[in-house]
């Protein structure tokens, strides 16, 4: 009796194991089927383009563009829309297990830290469109082109300000810190909060230092970030960094900001500007777009963080560029897609419809919104922009943001902020296996 039952149990186990292995075989079979068909030149290729759901208005995935591409090349593009809050994790996992999409839209600076840019993505230096790119910096890392976009305008960071308030009070754009404080004083006297600081969102506290540090090192210490990333020097080695952090804090302690800086969050900013409660904010020009959407009559502009004399405008390395993973199953076709987008006709169409600053020398920039035209005339054309520190940091930056928040909570001096970030930075670099740490 006992053995009989045992046999029965064994057969159940066997049967279930068999069914598992059979399903495994089945899926293996289909896999080899697809790879065989991709070798066949007559078969239709389908490209997988992975993109965050939050970027679903992206210029690259407009249906008419994809349709046109399919008509010309007989290649279909299949979109994978990834939920915004999971984009990074999903892409990290896909790359780690070699289940890579053929094209990914992501932003360059985060790709360096999140997605291991050098290991995972193709260098695009020799692509046919590469020679036509006007501003290579916004698409490059470590001296190589890794990404593609038809626009060179990736978001500018500085002091977003209300032009109307400036005009009414007869103020002009400050070119140094003392002038900036004087302007704050005048705005405060008129009953308007000079600066809105939404530092419940810790990242917002980084706009000032990210541009100020980058501007200082670009002008005075161009090798600093190389030294930093090879552990030859530290954040706390530059005394001016401390000064810049003190400056931002001083704007708060002098009473030029909202009182509750650690309770107010970025999502309140548009409303504050619409109500004319505030005159300025250390932020990116995406804020201006947000305000204009609500009320096109608002005239906002952006000027450089006035940390030192005649600072440059911070150029955010963020934005949505296209990348091709090295392990893409259809490398050639994926590159064809970039060629197609970069073609004069298609790129012109995209640039026109989105109001982009063109990054291809044979594609003309359309008439831009006033603030954007301002940025182009005063900063981009005279090359008065500087890539913010985000572009140089190889590790997750959120701990730095928290430390900056700590400064405003009264828990840390600027010196301690930089010291603590040094410690965390070198630990993160060490974890990442960067030599020298």
């Amino acid at each position, binding site marked *: *009796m*006992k053995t009989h*039952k045992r046999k*029965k*149990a064994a057969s*159940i186990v066997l049967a*279930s194991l068999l069914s598992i292995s059979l399903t495994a075989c089945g899926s293996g079979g289909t896999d080899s089927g697809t790879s065989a068909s991709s070798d066949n030149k007559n078969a239709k290729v389908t490209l997988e383009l992975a993109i965050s759901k939050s970027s679903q208005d992206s210029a690259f995935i407009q249906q008419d563009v994809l349709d046109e591409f399919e008509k010309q090349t007989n290649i279909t593009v299949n979109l994978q829309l990834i939920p915004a809050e999971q984009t990074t994790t999903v892409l*990290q996992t896909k790359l*780690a297990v070699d289940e890579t999409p053929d094209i990914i839209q992501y932003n360059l600076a985060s790709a360096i830290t*999140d997605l*291991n840019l050098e*290991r995972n993505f193709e260098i695009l230096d020799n692509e046919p469109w590469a020679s036509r790119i006007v501003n290579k910096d916004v698409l490059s890392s470590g001296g190589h082109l890794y990404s593609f976009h038809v626009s060179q305008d990736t978001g500018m960071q500085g002091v977003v300000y209300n032009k109307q308030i400036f005009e009414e009070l007869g103020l002009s754009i400050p070119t140094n810190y003392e002038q900036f404080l004087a302007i704050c004083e005048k705005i405060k006297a008129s009953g308007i909060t000079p600066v809105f600081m939404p530092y*419940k969102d*810790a990242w917002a506290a980084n706009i000032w230092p990210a541009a100020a540090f980058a501007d200082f090192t670009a002008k005075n210490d161009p090798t600093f970030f190389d030294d930093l990333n090879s552990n030859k020097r530290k954040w706390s080695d530059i005394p001016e960094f401390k000064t810049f952090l003190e400056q931002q804090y001083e704007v708060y302690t002098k009473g030029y900001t909202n*009182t*509750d800086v*650690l*309770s107010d969050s970025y999502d309140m900013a548009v409303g504050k500007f619409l109500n004319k409660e505030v005159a300025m904010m250390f932020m990116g020009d995406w804020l201006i777009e947000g305000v204009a959407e609500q009320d096109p009559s608002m005239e906002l502009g952006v000027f450089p963080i006035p940390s030192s004399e005649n600072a440059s405008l911070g150029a955010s390395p963020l934005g949505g560029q296209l990348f091709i993973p090295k392990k893409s199953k259809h490398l050639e076709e994926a590159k064809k897609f970039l060629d197609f987008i970069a073609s004069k006709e298609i790129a012109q169409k995209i640039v026109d419809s989105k109001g982009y600053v063109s990054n291809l020398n044979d594609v003309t920039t359309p008439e831009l919104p006033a603030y954007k035209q301002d940025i182009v005339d005063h900063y981009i054309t005279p090359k008065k922009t500087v890539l913010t520190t985000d572009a140089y940091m190889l*590790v*997750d930056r*959120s*701990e730095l943001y*928290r*430390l900056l*928040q*700590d*400064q*405003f*909570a*009264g*828990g*840390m001096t600027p010196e301690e902020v930089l010291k603590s970030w040094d410690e965390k930075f070198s630990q*993160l670099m060490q*974890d*990442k*296996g960067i030599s020298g740490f």
Partner: protein
Amino acid sequence: MKRAKNLYSYYMVFPALLIYSIFFVVPAIAAFYYSFTDWRLDRIDLKFVGWANFEKIFSDKTLILALKNTAIFAIVTVIGKNLIGLLLAVALNMRLKTKNLLRAIFYSPSILSILVISILFTPMLRTEGTINSLLEAVGLHSLSQAWLTNPSIVIWTIAIVSIWQSAGFQMAIYLAGLQSISQEYYEAAKIDGASSWKSFFKITLPLLLPAININLMLTLIGGLKVFSEVYVMTGGGPGNASQVVGTIILRSFGEGNWGLGTAVNTLLFVVVTIIAIPLLIFMRRKEVTE
């Protein structure tokens, strides 16, 4: 024959056991293994690093702070939720006209998700928020605080919100316990001339021990695993002032340090087990049956 019958029951359990093992036991063991490796998102080659992750945990100031905050949160909420829950239960176990309505009112916060509660409380706890306005309206200016942005009180604030949300749930369990106590004991005590304090300590409390037991376990484990309220209200901030173990795990994963994240998680598991199991055994022994 009896033996065969026993075996037969095991066949029935087998599918459930298999699923449970695949989806729970195996990942748990895997997590235990991964907590001893340098598992990272940007490196596929796993290396066994022994205790390195745990050493890192105890040398990281923020992690120590997080452990401290978790301990404060757990202790404060265990005491608060149970004390208030018990008081409410005893009060609402009396013959009050409005007791059903009051029970519903006190229970209602625990129906809502803690996420919703946290989102609702965040603006109320601002420096210029409702709570401070209320305090000022009744003349308690001195008590108004930067509830969520003052590093030295933020974890207490979050604990109080958590108590407010959950005390009604503890009340419900205590009420159930109270109602299972037979009135005869109280009548007998009354005849013997016992004061109501005495009958509370000599009858109610001992017979309520199973309910107290459950509540202590639930609140303690919940307190040690705190995440949602901190994540929503402060995200661990300002700075790192309100980091708890749960948010540190999230931070480690966000930094790409999956091995370290799993190690913190394993540590949390061990700490919860070490505290919970002896407590459970101790409390079980104290229980009496009617």
